[in-house]
């Protein structure tokens, strides 16, 4: 198929960007979206132009590196996937595809479609852990039974890949789904409960400090999340923060 691409080009964080039109032809419907981008980049290199910079790594939907806002949606129109898992069969011959970086004041553009998501790291550093040293003589893993339900629910929260689609898709650029998922994972496990109050306070404070917006419960994040992280995690974080303060 033949496609027209409208892509955000921006040299670096200090320069202004703009949308540029490109044409690609002979795209197979079995290609992944990023393989289509590879074709475009090969074409640009052939012409001596700079290829479009975009983040990607594992290309199997787990590292969370790929981003891209495709036709007005984070990770494109399909559900439950990252951009690297989006296949060209989702599009039709002759389509025009708009490709933009994830937008949020807390995610500044580094170049073209690459954004800086280090705010997520700093939120994790503020408390997204259980304070246990590596010693080799922690108690046996089966000493504390954990109900299957709690373990499974914690796992569901823990599957977050930190891609930032929740922030990108939120009209308020809120990071609450991301933070809620991490807070939930630990809040649901007995190991995490010792530090639960401080953890939620610190992580929410850091989230606010990074300049993410507030949640208005539109639910867009849950729909666009490639890992199907539930809004329930935001509700749990809200409860945890109230509990920590009352």
């Amino acid at each position, binding site marked *: 198929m033949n496609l027209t691409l409208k892509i955000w080009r921006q040299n670096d964080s200090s320069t202004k960007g703009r949308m540029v039109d490109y044409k690609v032809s002979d795209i197979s419907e*079995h290609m992944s979206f990023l393989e289509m981008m590879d074709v475009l980049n090969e074409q640009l290199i052939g012409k001596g132009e700079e290829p479009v910079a975009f983040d990607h790594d*594992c290309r199997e939907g787990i590292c969370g590196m790929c981003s891209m806002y495709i036709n007005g949606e984070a990770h494109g129109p399909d559900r*439950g*996937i990252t951009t690297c898992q989006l*296949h060209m069969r989702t599009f039709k011959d002759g389509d025009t595809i708009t490709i933009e970086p994830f937008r949020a004041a807390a995610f500044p553009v580094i170049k073209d479609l690459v954004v800086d998501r280090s705010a997520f790291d700093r939120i*994790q550093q503020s408390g997204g852990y*259980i304070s246990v040293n590596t010693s080799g003589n922690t108690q046996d893993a*089966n000493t504390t039974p954990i109900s299957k339900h709690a373990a499974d629910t914690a796992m569901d929260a*823990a*599957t977050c890949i930190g891609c930032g689609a929740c922030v990108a898709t939120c009209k308020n650029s809120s990071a609450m789904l991301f933070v809620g998922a991490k807070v939930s994972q630990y809040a649901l496990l007995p190991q995490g409960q010792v530090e639960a109050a401080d953890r939620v306070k610190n992580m929410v404070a850091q989230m606010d400090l990074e300049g993410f917006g507030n949640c208005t419960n539109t639910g867009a994040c849950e729909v666009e999340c490639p890992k199907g992280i539930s809004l329930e995690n935001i509700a749990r974080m809200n409860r945890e923060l109230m509990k920590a303060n009352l």
Partner: protein
Amino acid sequence: MALDSKVPKGPIKDKWTNYINHIDLVNPANKRNIDIIVVGTGLAGGSASATLAELGYNVKAFAYQDSPRRAHSIAAQGGINAAKNYQGDGDSVYRLFYDTVKGGDYRSREANVYRLAEVSANIIDQCVAQGVPFARDYGGLLDNRSFGGVLVSRTFYAKGQTGQQLLLGAYSAMNRQIARGKIEMFNRHEMLDVVKVDGKARGIIARNLVTGEIERHSAHAVVIATGGYGNVFFLSTNAMGSNATAAWKIHKKGAYFANPCYTQIHPTCIPRSGDYQSKLTLMSESLRNDGRIWVPKNLEDVKAIREGRKKPTDLAPEERDYYLERRYPAFGNLVPRDVASRAAKERCDAGYGVNQTGEAVYLDFASAIDRYGKEQAKIQGIDKPSKAKIYELGQAIVEAKYGNLFQMYEKIVDENPYETPMMIYPAVHYTMGGIWVDYNLQTTVPGLYCIGEANFSDHGANRLGASALMQGLADGYFVLPYTIGDYLSNEIRTGKIATDTKEFDEAEKDVTDRIDFFINNKGTKSVDYFHKKLGNIMWNKAGMSRNEKDLKDAMAEIKALREEFWKEVSVPGSANEMNTELAKAGRVADFLELGELFAKDALERNESCGGHFREESVELDGEQKGEAKRNDKDYAYVSAWEYKGEPADAVLHKEALEFNDIELKQRSYK
């Protein structure tokens, strides 16, 4: 230089305990004055960084990704082995050790593997304490599954995302130390050289991938944890950015490279669909617990399926060849990876491949759905369940176990694996070879350590499933923090290492010269052009099945390709900005050297062992006819290569492998 593995004396089960009881320690006050650089933040690098920082050292950690959490360990699906014997099925440290050595086809170092098995149980305890949500049973205790090549259930898992959860555990431990200021994290940085002062590793040269700035970082010891080199094949299950540059640079500075030809070709990957393919996707080996692998018995059926006249589900059981069950009745579909992969290649080479490219076999869940369905019907007390009901109940169980993998398959292939069998084909997945290290995980350069997949030590010629995660975390959490202390105890008087020395000047100049070359070389071909060509040579001539002629051809072709690369490569943009092509160019340049050494090593090892299959070395008769034939008399050694300029000129050093606690046997899964 003679290789000294520094394996402690004494009985194997006491070696590690005695060792840690007698090493020199660094007191806490002195640790504060010692810097350690860790390159790579996957399971090995991440866990090492966190633990070293907890101990009190100043750690500088480097990752080419935008966050430590994105290292490719995250993609490991199936699980992590540990000799916990929670299932009471006869597991023990010895059995895990035995299985790993046997699985590695007797080409790993006994003492290292035993230590790995010993600390395996601690890993699970540590990870649970960190909040890793492993799967549990209804009693609230940890659940296990079984994996290829073993007879017990010792694999702990977190759905199909075990690597992700373990990495996030290590990442959280890192975060705690980053917040305390004990780890300084350098994201989007790539190590481009190691700096040696007076023969010791004292720092690195790194490039900031955002600004292009070249930076000098000094330390008292340098740890390389940058993973494997599977991307030398271009197409592999590795991440796009996975590279061998750090490992290759230290090799050039004196670290020996061991067994480069030992590559694991994983049997259950999604087959490739076209030339544009950028990477291959692995489907967890755990699928082989319930999936049965087959191809049609008759070539007419193969043809009919390829032409779309027949569907796989049209074939009756007697028209199918469940070739693993046929050839290996004892292990069936759960034979080790190398065996399963070669068997698939054998069938496809014979013309039984079931897709257009002729490179695919079926992985079928119909029997599992049926079996689980009947089981569930019994549990739920359904009398005489209908076929549809059985299917419904069985499908629910299969979905609960493998739902995310099935969904992933459907997204990529656009076929529903509940209704039609999956198509799979082997793909490059893991490299057992790597930088040679001694028992302390130190390379042949003092102060330079190598851990995780990047080293060669634990998996011999073939790695068992769920052992990579185990090794990465064992090295990082429980081994390196001890062994590096022994070295650093001599560094307490060294003081801060200066970076304004001629050694740093020289290393930086080499790095900038090479970058300038790429930017100024106005060639005609993209970096990917060369990478794909290299991959083709590797896959066709040094892939699943190797012979002398092909390997010699491969060496010559890679050398020619390398020469063309240095003439014709084209890198747009400039050096002082984010330049993804420039980063790729440096990595491919190193792969073009490593690939040749790989072929040379494969050529030198004229035996079949594990993932390395030489057509010249097969059993000629008996029950094992046609199976790989190992040659313990001539090849029971580790090949450690010393860099001497051209890869073809590399010098071989042999570390003899002694097996005192395990009898060397023909690996039989029949």
